[in-house]
């Protein structure tokens, strides 16, 4: 059972993720970057390491004008936790798409959010990894102990 303050915080964190999706859909790099802390880090699924809001804004400006032009962001939240008050960890699956929202989301993310002095929750760290289902399946076959408990 969540306390009232925690369920309020869950809603606030969820709202940040929704604004992230909206900003991506509008291809609004400034709006996207405003959801991160000034010193946020952002690790892309290619393994590129971005440091700070400006880095995140500028790279997304380039993406929205190029590779990710006209795309939308899909995500499915796996869980939201508050390991200490004022800090949230969100795990999600996600993908970019055009047209119909894909059923299967090929990437997986960890977001760490912090409630800043102005009371707003912002993303302090983000990391994205593209799933490699074939390699994963082979590793499960060779070492069954690697299968996560949730998939037993």
């Amino acid at each position: 059972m969540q306390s009232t303050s925690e369920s309020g915080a869950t809603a606030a964190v969820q709202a940040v993720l929704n604004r992230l999706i909206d900003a991506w859909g509008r291809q609004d790099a400034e709006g996207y970057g405003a959801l991160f802390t000034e010193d946020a880090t952002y690790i892309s699924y290619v393994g590129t390491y971005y440091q700070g809001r400006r880095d995140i804004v500028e790279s997304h400006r380039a993406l929205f004008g190029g590779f990710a032009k006209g795309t939308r962001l899909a995500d499915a939240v796996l869980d939201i936790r508050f390991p200490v008050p004022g800090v949230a960890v969100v795990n999600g699956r996600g993908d970019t798409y055009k047209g119909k929202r894909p059923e299967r989301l090929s990437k997986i993310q960890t977001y760490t959010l912090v409630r800043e002095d102005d009371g707003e929750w912002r993303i302090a760290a983000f990391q994205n990894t593209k799933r490699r289902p074939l390699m994963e399946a082979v590793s499960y076959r060779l070492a069954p102990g690697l299968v996560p408990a949730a998939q037993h």
Partner: protein
Amino acid sequence: MSTDRITLPTATPPATPPATPTASRSGRSRRRTVKRALVATALVLGLTAGGGYLWLSATSDVKVTGSAACTDVTATGPGDRDAVCGTLSALTSAWGDGDADAYGRLFTQDATYTTYLGTHYQGRQDITEAHRALLGGFLKGTRLADSILGIRFLGPDAALVTSRGDTYTGSRPDELTKVQTYTLVREDDGGWRIAAFQNTQRQSVMEKGSFLLAPGTVPRAEK
């Protein structure tokens, strides 16, 4: 390099022998010309692709490599950096000792752990059992190398650590091919434990390709 491209056009012999020796000779020399042209094309394509790949790969080194000594890194925010570094160093030791239980104890009870293959583990027990399988199997006898990119305290009881890392046997590799984010918290007993971890393998050639096609995607520190 592809050889099937070369053999395909000559794979089917003529069903009937050519009527005259002259026709046979010219047919054979035409086939030889085609074959030579295909070999040359395949060579050029192969060398271009291979050379391009090597060039992309060779020019894709990162500038921001971090620090192998955690305690050399200046942390931002209010918190006990050395205690956080202690947890990371215990993690490296537990890995080197092949000790899955000691490794798992450095995570919070409800920690999440996302591997570079995108496998998602939930909770200390999941993390411990997976590492028991890894440290007794694929990664038996390996060591963990890491290099700290940054340490930030979100408050006195929460920290973010970013790093590059890799597993290895023998001598420590110069280039660490994966990138990590750790979210650590200080729990009620005063111990710093990892609440969330994610690992991503750098796709250096893909990264370089995107930097070339969209220079705006290059991080400031890599310019």
